């Protein structure tokens, strides 16, 4: 019997730090390990890779990598690991680096081949270069390609963008999206950047002080009003949507999601039919008891109040509402919440001031 998904249970302690997790992660898609630095997310990733020895159990899509009796050494685990900083072998060319893992992968297990990866990551013009002749973004792309060429059953990425400047980050993110959509393997992505998580993740695990605080699918988790991770001003929901039409006259486009549609500025000029992730900040969502079209805010949605939670900051209330099956968060003052008489189950009108496509 093969159990899909990743089961990871680790307990280890060293130098005043304790990691204690018992996790079940989906067997495909991108799982983000999210938290402040020092929360143990990298340690957990290293335990999964076997780079750090810690007592526990680990199975990946039914294969046991570690339990009480066995512990596969790193080189016997069919995984790929992308490190935070540049990790190319300086004594090998780009081609030599790419071949390092590929040649050590048994022929029968090779499912990803150089031409494919070189195409995905746009490396064809770099193959003969030495690592010291590459830009930061190019090096990280080579490192990702090199890792993928072992045809891994699990891809681990430890903040692969954090050592890069903004420009290189923007250059790499589309490649990561391509990978997410083309690979049929689970990806565990460590990050402390809400923007990266919002853009890439399907599932999120929030960690603090070596423990898991919350986990769940990205949309639901971000839409929880009682998030243990106080994102405060940055609290936002992510809504998957499809672009339906563009209005060149007003420079707008309409994105449809489950339960309605929203107009947004046509800055990215997405093709109709393309899939996007919309980010809607809780502070940009206000609540009215009835729809009032005589105002500047154009995006009005009928919605139902689900939960009301006091924010960590005094005087602020976070309200979760649902339009169709999609959850939204609204951050309003506690006085407004009181004056409107909000309570779970109430039908109200959402007023959304601004919508952004995540990038």
């Amino acid at each position, binding site marked *: 019997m093969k159990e899909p998904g990743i089961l990871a249970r680790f307990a280890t302690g060293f130098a005043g730090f304790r990691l204690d997790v018992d996790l079940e992660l989906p067997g495909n898609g991108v799982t983000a390990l999210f938290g402040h630095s020092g929360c143990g997310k990298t340690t957990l990733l290293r335990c999964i*890779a076997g*780079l750090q020895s810690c007592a526990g159990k680990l199975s990946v899509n039914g294969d046991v990598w570690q339990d009480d009796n066995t512990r596969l*050494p*790193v*080189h016997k685990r069919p*995984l*790929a*690991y992308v*490190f935070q*900083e540049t*990790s190319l*072998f*300086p*004594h090998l060319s780009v081609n030599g680096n790419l071949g*390092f*893992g590929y040649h*050590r*992968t048994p022929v029968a297990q090779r499912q990803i081949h150089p031409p494919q990866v070189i195409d995905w990551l746009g490396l064809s013009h770099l193959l003969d270069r*030495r*690592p*010291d002749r590459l830009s930061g973004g190019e090096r990280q792309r080579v490192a990702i390609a*090199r*890792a993928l060429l*072992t045809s891994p059953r699990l891809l681990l990425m430890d903040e692969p963008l954090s050592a890069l400047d903004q420009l290189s980050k923007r250059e790499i993110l589309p490649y990561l999206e391509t990978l997410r959509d083309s690979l049929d393997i689970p990806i565990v992505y460590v990050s402390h950047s809400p923007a990266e998580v919002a853009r890439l993740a399907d599932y999120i695990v929030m960690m603090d002080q070596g423990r898991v605080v919350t986990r769940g699918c990205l949309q639901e988790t971000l839409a929880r009003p009682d998030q243990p991770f106080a994102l405060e001003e940055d609290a936002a929901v992510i809504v998957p949507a499809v672009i339906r039409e563009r209005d060149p006259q007003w420079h707008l486009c309409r994105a449809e999601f489950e339960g309605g549609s929203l107009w947004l500025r046509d800055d990215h000029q997405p093709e109709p039919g393309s899939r996007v992730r919309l980010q809607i900040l809780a502070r940009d969502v206000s609540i009215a008891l009835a729809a009032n079209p005589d105002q500047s805010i154009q995006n009005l949605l009928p919605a139902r109040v689900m939960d009301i939670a006091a924010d960590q900051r005094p005087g602020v209330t976070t309200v979760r509402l649902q339009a169709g099956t999609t959850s939204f968060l609204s951050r309003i003052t506690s006085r407004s919440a009181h004056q409107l008489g909000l309570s779970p189950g109430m039908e109200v009108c959402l007023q959304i001031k601004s919508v952004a496509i995540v990038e």
Partner: protein
Amino acid sequence: MSPEWQTVWLTLKLAGITTALLMVIGTPIAWWLARSSHWLRQPVAALVALPLVLPPTVLGFYLLLLMGPEGVVGTLTDTLGLGTLPFTFAGLVVASVLYSLPFTVQPLQNVFSTINERMLEVAATLRASPLDRFFTVVIPLARPGFLTAAVLTFAHTLGEFGVVLMIGGNIPGETRVLSVAIYDHVETLQYGSAHLLAGGMLVFSFLVLLTLYLINGRLNNGNLKS
């Protein structure tokens, strides 16, 4: 072969064999010294460095006793049917290996300790076993250190005198090396022959070191760019 060339050839052979053996023996010792945190690390490091500070005659004296017919090693080699080692070429090789050990181990240990642990982790995640990692990552990255170690060991063995005299003596074609031959020539006032060997050695040693510095300079420049 003239006796002079025989001496030169024997010396080069001794230095070559010693260097080759030490590359094999010294590498694991240097790796262990560079990576381990075992309590024996410091004592072993001190032991390896001993030939640097001991007068060669002291080392030669104890080796002579150990490898002689009454010594532990001598008894062992005798029972194995190998005879005793003093005053043989094999004995010289054993002595040279011990005498030049620090000249191999220290440069290697230095270069090994500069190798980023991350490179080994990367190689492990790319399916390379520990031995594979050593040969395909550590050795290429440690190339300048290996070059330095080999040249220093070779040159140091070329010049050894005290140890050879203590345990090898002066048997032409068997244990008579350059430094001993030069000493002989000077003793018997054959300054011309002494000049030939000494001058040759001087030029050779200079050329070897010059080559080493040129190659290392090039390797380091290559590394600096990265």
